[in-house]
């Protein structure tokens, strides 16, 4: 239930599926659980389904927070 990974949408298909790429490996997954996902977006994939779109802005914020950890009390919570 926990094994889900971010993968990039490479192409959308007419039947509600998409081909995603994870480190060069490609897989066809279902987009039935999400909407508004376009080519180039990242989605979190679990057992062949996208569960949510990955927000790149939030990802960067989290990374910045993590990298700040040692230097100060960290950015906004």
């Amino acid at each position, binding site marked *: *239930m*926990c*094994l889900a990974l971010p993968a990039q949408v490479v192409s959308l298909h007419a039947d509600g599926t998409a081909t995603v790429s*994870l*480190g*060069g*490996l490609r897989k066809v997954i279902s987009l039935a659980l999400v909407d508004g996902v376009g080519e180039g977006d990242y989605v979190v994939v679990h057992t062949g389904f996208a569960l949510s779109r990955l927000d790149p802005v939030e990802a960067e914020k989290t990374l910045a927070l993590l990298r700040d950890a040692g230097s100060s009390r960290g950015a906004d919570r």
Partner: protein
Amino acid sequence: MASKWSRRLDWAEGRVDMTHGSGGRAMAQLIDELFVAAFDNLLLAKKNDQALFEVPAGRMVLTTDAYVVSPIFFPGGDIGSLAVHGTINDVAMAGARPLYLSASFILEEGFPLDDLRRVVESMARASREAGVPVVTGDTKVVERGKGDGVFITTTGVGVVPPPVVAPSGDRARPGDVVMVSGTIGDHGVAILSSREGLAFETSIESDSAPLHRLVARMVEVVPDIHVLRDPTRGGLSATLNEIAQQSGVGMVIEERALPVRGQVTAACELLGLDPLHLANEGKLVAITDRRHAQKLLDAMRADPLGAQAAIIGEVIDDENRFVQIETTFGGRRILDWLVGEALPRIC
């Protein structure tokens, strides 16, 4: 050229039937038109039940393995080429030069002749390219349902040249360096990608390859390599654990030093597997005295099959005989044997 057989074998549509294993005319034709023709060597062409050859001076090595891989054809190889490479490699891991192979086939009634031909021709090609002929063999047919298409057993003989001190699993010593000849997990991922229910596209192919020439280079430069082993089923983790047990030592492996292709890492992430648990069919682990490590590494890298060779860790004193991994975090964990099969998971 007129065929000496009254009926042609139907390669396109024909299937193996019980007469192909009965010792009669049909079997003789199959052996003649397929096996002898493909393997094409003087010893086999004699058509005796055994091959006669001079025994070179030295210590002889004998090994055998059965191949039951499914699917039979996979990216980068098939059961035939695997059967040749795997047995050559087991001979080579003793530091030996492989001389000859035997091949026995158990065919399931109904197995398509076209598939059989593909497999045998692949074996013949592998044998030719490796310079190790298949000099004797056997064919049996079992009833439909009692076999999985084809099972192949190959036996190999080889000789360890005089200057070589035979590597052995019990010779690893604290302070030794652990090396691997290239990327791990490729074969396992290639097989998984062909299994039903796990469809993913990858350009990863099996690394199935004969390692005897690489080994010959290695023992020339370091005649006293302590351990050589190819990490097949169970992957690198099984091999390292076996050696640790046999030698009564521990090991520490650096996770960041392991050569793993990007797509193999990705496939393992996706399926919840560990590349260290996946089979390799064209790689070897070498454990050597620290003083010879660089020299050995250079020799490996000079060979096409060792281009990505890397030092991955060292042997230590450990009464628990643990194989430990130093993670990229600097934390350590035990690298254990794979339990059961490598199965994809959701958790």
